């Protein structure tokens, strides 16, 4: 996960490689719990992006001033404050969404991604880099939520639906699976675990095949180098013989 690596890879492969949910298994609780509908996934994703970006910015600013022994409690207070603010805003403007997401808004505080990024990145980088990192991590978390909720909503209810969280007006509704043919298990807990398992295995498969390719390329390179070295020694020996 070094800097140059992430820069070399494109946006989408960064979403897969550094995916905090399916690659690193962080923030799984909310991913499993709230991805029954697309609306919940977007609401949760936006909340996490906001909290993560602002917390990364704040923490990168206060990190040099924070004594080392108490840095975790300080970070947690920063994060908890942000979550409280975001929760209040959601309660006021999107009450319906707030009540369906329920405790999971409050539990953003203990979402490992946020404290993890604070510890691993924001405390040792400048404000701009930390903000970018928070935004990217938040986006790839949201990307995972979207993938989960698309699969679960389409297979489980057969309808792809999106509504305005402020007014609850349905913006978009499309039946993809005829009524009576949907698989309701995908809306239950079992479906959440199964969908997660499939996506995690998919990410692992992509990583494995890329690693194999990289290993094969490295091996080919090493073989070529060896052959070249052999040829060089052989020709040197020949030259010696000739002399």
């Amino acid at each position, binding site marked *: 996960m070094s800097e140059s690596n992430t820069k070399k890879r494109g946006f989408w492969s960064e979403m897969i490689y550094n995916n905090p949910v399916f690659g690193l298994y962080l923030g799984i*609780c909310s991913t499993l*719990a709230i991805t029954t509908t697309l609306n919940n996934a977007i609401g949760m994703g936006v909340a996490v992006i906001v909290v993560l970006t602002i917390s990364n910015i704040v923490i990168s600013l206060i990190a040099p001033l924070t004594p080392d022994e108490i840095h975790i409690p300080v970070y947690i207070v920063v994060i908890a404050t942000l979550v409280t603010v975001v929760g209040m805003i959601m309660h006021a403007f999107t009450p319906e969404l707030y009540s369906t997401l329920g405790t999971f808004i409050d539990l953003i505080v203990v979402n490992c991604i946020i404290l993890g990024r604070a510890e691993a990145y924001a405390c040792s980088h400048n404000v701009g880099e930390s903000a970018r990192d928070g935004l990217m991590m938040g986006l790839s978390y949201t990307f995972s939520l979207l993938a989960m909720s698309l699969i679960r909503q389409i297979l489980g209810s057969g309808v792809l639906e999106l509504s305005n969280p402020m007014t609850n007006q349905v913006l978009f509704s499309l039946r993809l699976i005829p009524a009576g043919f949907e698989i309701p298990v995908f809306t*239950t807990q079992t479906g959440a675990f199964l969908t997660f398992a499939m996506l995690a295995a998919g990410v692992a498969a992509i990583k*494995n095949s890329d690693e194999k390719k990289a290993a094969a390329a490295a091996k080919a390179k090493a073989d070529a180098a060896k052959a070249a070295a052999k040829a060089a020694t052989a020709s040197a020996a020949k030259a010696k013989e000739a002399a």
Partner: protein
Amino acid sequence: MNLLTLFLSALLINNVILSKFIGMCPFLGVSTKLSSAVGMGLAVIFVVFGASVLSWALYYYALVPLGLEYMKLICFILLIAAFVQFVEMFIKKTSPSLYKSLGIYLPLITTNCAVLYVALDNITQGYTLVETMVNSIAVPAGFMLVLLIFATIRERLATADVPEAWKGNPIAFVVAAIMAIAFSAFAGLV
């Protein structure tokens, strides 16, 4: 509410892992060995019970009289972090052998969302002190129950022939899915 009903529903029907998806990180992290699952389970029961009762008292005796209910998230998380730190120090001083077996799990518990979840849930549901105590035992006991079953399955799974991409966590999630089906049968119990 009947206390037994409350206990059973928190333990089995609304199981914290399989139905609420809370506490997944330690569930995956320490479920590879039965002995560490037992240690983690006991530590979670102890911390959740202590932290929830303290949070309940803090909310009703300090935050409500002061009109600071909206501060509960910040106060609870600080209380939990302080409580875990205190328990760790206390066990280290009084019982080094217990510290050896539980000690490494204690710092992990601060980030276990189950602790914060139970503390917040007791307030949202409006439980009395007795109900809070019952709930705060039942929820982590459900956590430990599922953790133990899961750990025994995973010990077997370690020697199973699993496709490359499914090794480790993905197959563990499939196991969890099947366990969730089994636990959904408890729904008609109460």
